[in-house]
C-alpha cells in the first residue's frame, strides 16, 4: 500500500483491497489452495473418471489430517519469527506420544483401574507438561548458554527419537483409552450435525462482533474506518465460509457398519435406505481451531506477541528497549513444546496407539507450513493464519497425490519442489510490495 505518485491510476481491484484492508498475501494463498483443490479434483475426474478430492469425505479427512501439523505450525511461526528454528518437534511429538501411551496403557490402569474416567485428562496433561518442559529446557540451552537453536534442536531430533525407543523398547503401545481416542477424530470423535450448526452460528456471531467492535474502537479514536459496504462484505464472506464448512462437514455421513453398530447399541431402528448420521466437525480440527485462535490472540493482542515480533525485527533494539530477550526465547521454545504435546495427543489418538515412527519428518512439514504461510527466515515476519493455511496447503498436496495415485517417491519430490517455489514466490511478492 504505497502512495507513490506512479500508481495514481488505481485499478478497481486495488481500491477494493484498500477498502476491505484484506491482506493480498492471504488472498494469494487462498487462491493457491483453491487451485490445488480444483486441480486434483478435475485431474481425478478426467484421468481416473472420478473426482474424489472435493467430496465431503475427503475434505473431512483433510481437516483431521491437517490438525496436528497446523497446531505445531502456529508455534513454529513464533520460533522462526525470532530467527530461531526447531528441528526437534517431530521427535518430541513421538516422545510425548510414547510417554502418554505408557501412562494410559501401562501405568494409570494399574492404579485407577482400566477405563477410569480420569485416565485421559491425566494423560493429556502429562503429555503437554512433558512437551513444555523439554521445550523449555531446549530454550534454556539456546537462550542462556548461547548454543544455536539449530544445534540444540538437531540434537533434540536424535535424542528424543532415541528416548522414545528406550521408553518402550520399540514396542507399539496400544490400545489407548477410548475417551482419549476421541481427540483423534473418527466417527465418534465428532460433534455431530446439531453441534456443528451451533458451533458454526457461534463463530459467525463472533466474526460479526469482532467487525463491530473493531469499527467502534476506530471511531473512538477518530481513525479512518472501512466503508460500510466493505464491512458488510467481510461479514458476509466470513459467515458464508463458516456455514459452508458446517454444511460440508455435515454432508459426510457415518459409514454403514458404524451406523448399524450404533443403532443396535442404542435400539434405534434403521429405516430402509439406511440412516444418515452426520460426522460434523471432528474434535482434532476443533482443537486446531482453538489453538489457532488462541495463538493469533497471543501473537497480535498481547505483550508477549509484540515482543516476539520486536525481537525478530531487531534483537539488539529489543534488548535495549528493556525486553528480557533470553527469557522470551526460553518461553517461546516452551510454548513450542506445549503445542507439540497437544499435537502428540491428536496424532496418537488418531492412530489409537503410540508407535516408534510417530511424528517422523513432521518437523519438515511444520517448518514448510510456516514458511509457505509467509513466515520469513530473516525474522520479524509471519502470521498464525498463514501457517495454518500453509499446513492445509501441504496436507492438500499430500493427500491429493495419494487420491490420484501418485507414487510415494513422486509425492516427496513434489512437496519439496513446492516448498522451494513457494519461498521464491514469497521473495518476489515482498520485493514488489515494499
Amino acid at each position, binding site marked *: 500500500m504505497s502512495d507513490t505518485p506512479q500508481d495514481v491510476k488505481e485499478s478497481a481491484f486495488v481500491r477494493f483491497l484498500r477498502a476491505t484492508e484484506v491482506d493480498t498475501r492471504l488472498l494469494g494463498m487462498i487462491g493457491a489452495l483453491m487451485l490445488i483443490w480444483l486441480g486434483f479434483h478435475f485431474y481425478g475426474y478426467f484421468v481416473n473418471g472420478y473426482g474424489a478430492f472435493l467430496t465431503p469425505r475427503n475434505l473431512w479427512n483433510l481437516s483431521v489430517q491437517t490438525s496436528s501439523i497446523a497446531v505445531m505450525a502456529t508455534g513454529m511461526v513464533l520460533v522462526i519469527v525470532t530467527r530461531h528454528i526447531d528441528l526437534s518437534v517431530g521427535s518430541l511429538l513421538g516422545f510425548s506420544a510414547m510417554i502418554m501411551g505408557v501412562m494410559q496403557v501401562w501405568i494409570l490402569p494399574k492404579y485407577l483401574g482400566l477405563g477410569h474416567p480420569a485416565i485421559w485428562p491425566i494423560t493429556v496433561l502429562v503429555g503437554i507438561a512433558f512437551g513444555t518442559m523439554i521445550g523449555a529446557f531446549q530454550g534454556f540451552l539456546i537462550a542462556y548458554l548461547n548454543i544455536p537453536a539449530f544445534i540444540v534442536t538437531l540434537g533434540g531430533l536424535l535424542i528424543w527419537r532415541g528416548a522414545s525407543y528406550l521408553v518402550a523398547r520399540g514396542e507399539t503401545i496400544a490400545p489407548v483409552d477410548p475417551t482419549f481416542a476421541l481427540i483423534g477424530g473418527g466417527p465418534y470423535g465428532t460433534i455431530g450435525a446439531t453441534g456443528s450448526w451451533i458451533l458454526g452460528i457461534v463463530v459467525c456471531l463472533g466474526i460479526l462482533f469482532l467487525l463491530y467492535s473493531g469499527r467502534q474502537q476506530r471511531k473512538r479514536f477518530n481513525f479512518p474506518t472501512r466503508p460500510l459496504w466493505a464491512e458488510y462484505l467481510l461479514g458476509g464472506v466470513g459467515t458464508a465460509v463458516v456455514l459452508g464448512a458446517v454444511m460440508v462437514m455435515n454432508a459426510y455421513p457415518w459409514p454403514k457398519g458404524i451406523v448399524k453398530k450404533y443403532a443396535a447399541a442404542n435400539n434405534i431402528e434403521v429405516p430402509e435406505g439406511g440412516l444418515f448420521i452426520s460426522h460434523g466437525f471432528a474434535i482434532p480440527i476443533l482443537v486446531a481451531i482453538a489453538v489457532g485462535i488462541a495463538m493469533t490472540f497471543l501473537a497480535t493482542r498481547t505483550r508477549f506477541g509484540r515482543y516476539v515480533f520486536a525481537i525478530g525485527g531487531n534483537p539488539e533494539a*529489543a534488548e535495549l528497549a528493556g525486553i528480557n530477550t533470553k527469557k522470551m526465547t526460553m518461553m517461546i521454545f516452551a510454548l513450542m513444546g506445549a503445542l507439540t504435546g497437544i499435537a502428540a495427543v491428536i496424532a496418537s489418538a488418531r492412530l489409537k496407539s503410540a508407535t516408534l515412527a510417530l511424528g517422523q519428518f513432521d518437523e519438515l512439514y511444520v517448518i514448510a507450513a510456516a514458511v509457505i504461510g509467509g513466515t520469513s527466515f530473516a525474522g520479524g515476519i509471519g502470521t498464525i493464519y498463514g501457517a495454518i493455511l500453509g499446513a492445509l496447503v501441504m496436507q492438500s498436496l499430500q493427500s491429493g497425490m495419494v487420491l490420484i495415485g501418485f507414487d510415494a517417491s513422486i509425492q516427496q519430490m513434489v512437496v519439496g519442489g513446492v516448498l522451494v517455489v513457494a519461498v521464491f514466490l514469497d521473495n518476489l511478492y515482498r520485493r514488489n510490495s515494499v
Partner: protein
Amino acid sequence: MENNNQAPLVELKEISIAFGGVHAVDKASCELYPGEVVGLLGHNGAGKSTLIKILSGAYTRDSGQIFIDGKEATINNPRHAKDFGIETIYQTLALADNVDAAANLYLGREILTRWGTLDDAAMEAETRKVMNRLNPNFTRFKDPVKQLSGGQRQSVAIARAIHFNARILIMDEPTAALGPAETEQVGQLIKQLKQDGIGIFLISHDIHDVFDLADRVVVMKNGAVVGSAHTTDVTKDEVLGMIILGKCPPGATPGPGAAQA
C-alpha cells in the same frame, strides 16, 4: 558553573570496561547536573559510546561506581537504567524495524486494556499526539519503521526517549542522519528539554555539533578522560587540541588521560 551548589544528577566514578585485552574505557569519571548539557567528545573509538552504554545498561562495567542523585545505583541492564529515568537515543536508533511507530514508542512499556491486552488504538492516539508536536510532517503511523526515512526514524527514536518523563537523556550522535533543518529542530528540542531540568549527555565526534549546545564538554581519548571544561572557558581550537592531541588547555580541568606537558 551555575549548578555547582546542587548535587549531581549522575556521577560516573572511575568506570572501566575491557573487551578481551582492550581497555575500551579506563577509569573514566564525569558528572551531569540537572538542566545541564554535557558534550562528550572524542575520536571514533575514544570510548564515548561505550561509557554511555554502561550508563544506559547496555554493557555492564568491570569496575567503578554510578551515583544517581548522590546514591549508588545498580545498573546491569537497560531495564534498570529506565527505572532511574535514563533514556537513550542510540546512534543506530535501536528501533524494531518491522513494527510501526506506536509499537516502537511503547516497546517495553505498552499501554494495556483492562483485560491485559495491548491497547493499540490508545497507543496510536498518543503517538499521533507526540509526533505532531515533534515532527508535524510525520503521517506514516501504520507503516513499519523500516519503510520510513532517516529523519522520520530519528524522530520516532527521539519521541520514545522523551515521552516517558526522562530525567537523564543520552543522545549518541543524534544528528548524524539528519539534514540542516532537522538538525536545527533537534537543537531547539535540546534547549527546551534543558529548561525542563533534564540532564543531557550529547555524544559526538564533531565539536561543531555540540559546542553551541553544551554547557560543558568532556573529552575522551583512547578510553580515558582527557579533561573537562565549561564551553565559556575554552575555545573550539583548544577543545580540538584536547580531542586530537590529548593536550589540556589552562581553562580545563585535566583528567587521567591528559598528555603530560
